[in-house]
């Protein structure tokens, strides 16, 4: 079974093409050559050159992600709409700063989105609505690949892999913090987990994902498969 698809980065990500792809074996945690997929062409370089079609394509490819992030971290739909507008304007205006060597395009956009959302929360002096939080830890820890859009598969795979390594309590804390924007204090209050432990869970989760991303980036830059 194919569990997680990731491209061999011998094909630069900012160019279209078909690369040799590898998949994780969930037991061995090694990578094996599995299949080929077509990597979508990065759009931000075209946006930076002033291509109006790239702007449209950017909405097609990333609109649902940005909207979904905003809906989870904004108190109301109107707030989310404002936030999405700010985010896309910021993405387009900063398109020239995107560097595929430092991370994927979707990560670049999601990072801008989150910083905007966090800034908005800070300026509004409030937290998002606490709703729809799954007490079970949220993200599936199965290694089965979810139906992630092609442009996000690598990143979703990294997130899934990191979450699979964590306890249910750690996963839940991360979901409440990162998935829904709840404060450390609110999470501690809602779960009964000591505040210091909440902070530790979040920190460890982030450090683990950072390490996996770095590992992925190095592999991509070397263009090798284990």
């Amino acid at each position, binding site marked *: 079974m194919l569990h997680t698809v990731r491209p061999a980065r011998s094909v630069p990500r900012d160019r279209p093409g078909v690369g040799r792809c590898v998949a994780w074996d969930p037991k061995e945690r090694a990578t094996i050559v599995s299949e080929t997929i077509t990597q979508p062409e990065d759009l931000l370089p075209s946006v930076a050159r002033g291509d109006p079609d790239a702007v449209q394509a950017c909405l097609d490819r990333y609109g649902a992600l940005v909207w979904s992030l905003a809906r*989870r971290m904004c108190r109301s739909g109107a707030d989310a709409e404002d936030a999405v507008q700010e985010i896309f304007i910021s993405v387009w205006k900063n398109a020239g700063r995107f560097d595929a060597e430092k991370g994927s395009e979707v990560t670049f956009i999601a990072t801008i989105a989150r910083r905007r959302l966090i800034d908005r929360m800070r300026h509004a002096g409030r937290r998002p609505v606490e709703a729809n939080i799954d007490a079970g830890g949220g993200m599936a820890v199965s290694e089965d690949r979810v139906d992630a859009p092609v442009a996000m598969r690598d*990143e979703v795979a990294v997130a899934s892999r990191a979450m699979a390594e964590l306890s249910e309590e750690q996963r839940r804390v991360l979901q409440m913090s990162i*998935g829904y924007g709840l404060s450390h204090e609110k999470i501690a209050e809602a779960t009964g987990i000591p505040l210091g432990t909440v902070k530790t869970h979040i920190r460890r989760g982030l450090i683990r994902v950072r390490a996996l991303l770095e590992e992925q980036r190095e592999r991509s830059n070397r263009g090798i498969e284990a």
Partner: protein
Amino acid sequence: MTPPTQPHEERLLDLLALRAVEALNEADEAAVASLDDAAAFDQAAAVLAMGFSVHEGLEPLPDSLRRGLERLGRDLIAGRELGNASPVNGVAARAASDTVEPAPLRFNGRNSNQSETRPETSSHTSGWIGVLGWLAAAACLALAVIGWSLPRDTPASSAPASAESLLASLETRPGIVRTSWVGLDAAGLNDAAHAYGRDLSGGVVWDPATNEGYMVFEGLASNDPAVFQYQLWIFDETRPTGDLPQFGEGILSQRPVPGAVFDVRGDGRVVVPVQAKLPVGKAVIFAVTVEPPGGVVVSDRDIVTLALVN
């Protein structure tokens, strides 16, 4: 094994982790924001957020928001001053200047021409509160909800035969809900109802199990789709409330689930699929509003009619 970290490194990691999920105070932000590690933590948080969103299911960008963004994008590419070229100029100007402030403005995919050509109705607040007041005063409406059956012997149907047959099929299912449109104009409290649904009858047949349903209208005013369209909203008892407190309290303060955006041609019977855009746990109110072409994400709630589920 991870090497032991020094206290200041621990403090730095704490700050970086906190910054990735919450806002730091200005002094701490200034101290760490430019570090490479800050970007790495940001990326890690973004990837996790992406994972959560994808696993829970991405919501498509609402159509009206999408159209507004397309306009913004075109303006940006054309090199126009965003602050002067867009109905969301306040937001655009803020993002362009990288100064993030609370955003008081929003757009609903409307433009000024549409607003001007659309018949005048009450303001959204007064209209909706008027509805609320009327509803509160008319508890007997609940009786009208019970036992209503869709009239199907009306000639000159303007609905497609397939919708009629699907409606007939739905009505045979066990567990379906039937509810009637209520005559909001009767109390003289809602201008939209008076303008478009004065002699309205019909209702909704809804299957809670499958989220399939049909609306039946008789007497709903014809519309020019270039000027305005009707839109259905479903208030769901299982969804959060408080998103839109300006429209009322309790269930009425929630962001309802959008349904079909539709047109009415002619004076006859019209059957329209409900087309809920999100899963509905327990529908308690179906409301029809008048909206700009294409519908909106957040309605001003110029209510034409509504139906209560007992």
